């Protein structure tokens, strides 16, 4: 067998992954090793492959992904902190043929926006909620989030999260799965090639359920925050696998009956 050279490997026809045509050329502001960039790319791939650009309205949160509208080439609305599902509700009700998604972090979705999250899911709005859970407030500099693990240190829990004083982490996916309005609730990751493929599959399912108007789809992505956790990207992924995944187990929580 002929030896495979580096030049063979990088030939365009051998590329397994490429930049989605819906990803812009703007330089991302995310920290090295952060999961947001990967999640954006996978979402852009799905929007592109499903021909959704012309009918997509995305809603960005307040948090690290506030500037997401700079990176994916679809129409975007930037919401106030926690309110993305309210915006999405109106967009979808007023324009039922659009594909509407929100993209929110844990502070946005599970603290300040808890009411909007719960009630949007409870009404069964036909939107997709993408929830990036990295257990910390990244943008404001590493404060405790509603999803911060017990004992985990942050700038506002410097001695570790004391659940007797600060409450326990909220498992939002499990909560919204209890509501009749949600049709598909799953927890995914983007730190490995396998995780990326599963996340992409989950997004494709959500698109299908949205096209069928089956109710709210909720995809949680358990992700890392190297800067907020004060770790290298590699350390943060290892820490996430050892600590976050046991607390927030990956996999489907609710799937619609076929």
């Amino acid at each position, binding site marked *: 067998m002929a030896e495979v050279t580096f030049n063979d490997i990088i030939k365009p026809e051998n590329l397994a992954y490429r930049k989605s045509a819906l990803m812009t050329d703007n330089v991302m502001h995310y920290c090295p090793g952060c999961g947001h960039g990967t999640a954006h790319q996978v979402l852009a791939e799905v929007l592109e492959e499903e021909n959704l*650009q*012309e*009918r*997509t*309205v995305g*809603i*960005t949160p307040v948090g690290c992904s*506030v*500037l997401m*509208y700079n990176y994916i*080439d*679809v*129409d*975007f*609305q*930037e*919401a*106030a902190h926690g*309110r993305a599902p*309210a*915006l*999405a*509700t*109106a*967009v979808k*009700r*007023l*324009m039922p043929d*659009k594909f509407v998604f929100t993209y929110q972090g844990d502070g946005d979705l599970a603290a300040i926006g808890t*009411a*909007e999250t*719960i*009630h949007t899911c409870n009404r069964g709005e036909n939107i997709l909620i993408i929830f990036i859970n990295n257990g910390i407030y990244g943008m404001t500099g590493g404060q405790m989030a509603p999803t911060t693990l017990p004992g985990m240190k942050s700038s506002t829990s410097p001695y570790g999260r004391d659940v007797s004083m600060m409450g326990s982490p909220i498992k939002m996916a499990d909560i919204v799965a209890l509501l009749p309005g949600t049709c598909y609730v799953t927890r995914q990751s983007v730190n490995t090639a396998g995780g990326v493929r599963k996340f992409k599959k989950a997004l494709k399912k959500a698109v299908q359920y949205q096209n069928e108007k089956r109710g709210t789809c909720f995809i949680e992505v358990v992700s890392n925050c190297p800067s907020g956790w004060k770790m290298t990207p590699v350390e943060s992924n290892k820490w996430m696998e050892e600590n976050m995944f046991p607390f927030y187990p990956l996999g489907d929580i609710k799937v619609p009956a076929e």
Partner: protein
Amino acid sequence: MEKELRLMKGNEAIAEAAIRAGADGYFGYPITPQSEILEYLMEANPQATTGMVVLQAESEVAAINMVYGGAACGKKVMTSSSSPGISLKQEGITYIAGAELPCLIVNVVRGGPGLGTIQPAQSDYFQATKGGGHGDYHLLVLAPASVQEMADFVELGFDLAFKYRNPVMILSDGAIGQMMEKVWLKPQKKRSEEILPWATTGKPASRPRNIITSLDLDSERQEKFNLKLIAKYREMEENEVRFEEFMTDDAEYLFVAYGTSARLCQKALQLARAEGIKAGLLRPITLFPFPKKRLNELADRTKGMLAVEMSAGQMVEDVMLSVNGKTRVSHYGRMGGMIPTPEEVVENLKSFIKG
């Protein structure tokens, strides 16, 4: 639906006028004394006729953010509430002003502060006219004094909101919201199908993506944006000042009052004239922009102006700024849901005249 004369509550008139104006969506949350707006719309069920969306939100905060989402699609959307609920909406309102979105917000004012009372008041004037939320911005504020104007200002409010891409507020009060009067309703307008060039309706290949945001991390650009907003407010001051005058031609003393207070000042005016006092009334219809120029002109030939408001004295500050020391200005008001009688207004005018 044809042009029609009906006997209606102010709140119901707003709801019916919204349907007839071709509104695309209403998002609300119950609060006294304006819950009839949401109730009327739910019963009328315009989704089945005009396609207008009506949704009861989980909070005032959610409702105003639904308005943000709908307005960002270029749709004709509105919300309504009363004072404590309007306080909750302020976050959304400042984002809407900052994102330059058109929408209509109705405040059927009740007495405050806090939970206050459910009776009529005019104590949200500062909040309505000076911004209300954080940052430098203004709403265009319309003050109806009748059920007819409650209905008329819905369509006018939408037109002005889209003309300036700015939120418009109807600042009413519990009296006008609850009282019944005859009202001419306009024929049904078709909902617009126009796709506005700036709206987020899905990106076709023919244009760059539309982004609706109030965020700009670059200070120089943000300041330019602030200047653009100010220019817009100056333009409103040039073009949109609305007011009504009663017996100002020979008036020596002028009442300045809006909404419910203006109605009782009309009666007070007659009582004062019967006693030989040459009184007049200026009723601001737009509270922002305020009829500054006209009041300044009238100040040249009046001996004094009495601002009558159901508040501790809020609009009176704008009257003072308008006349800029040219004439005496004072305030008379009741609070906590109390409505002054025309007789007590006249008594107060007399003591004002005495000085």
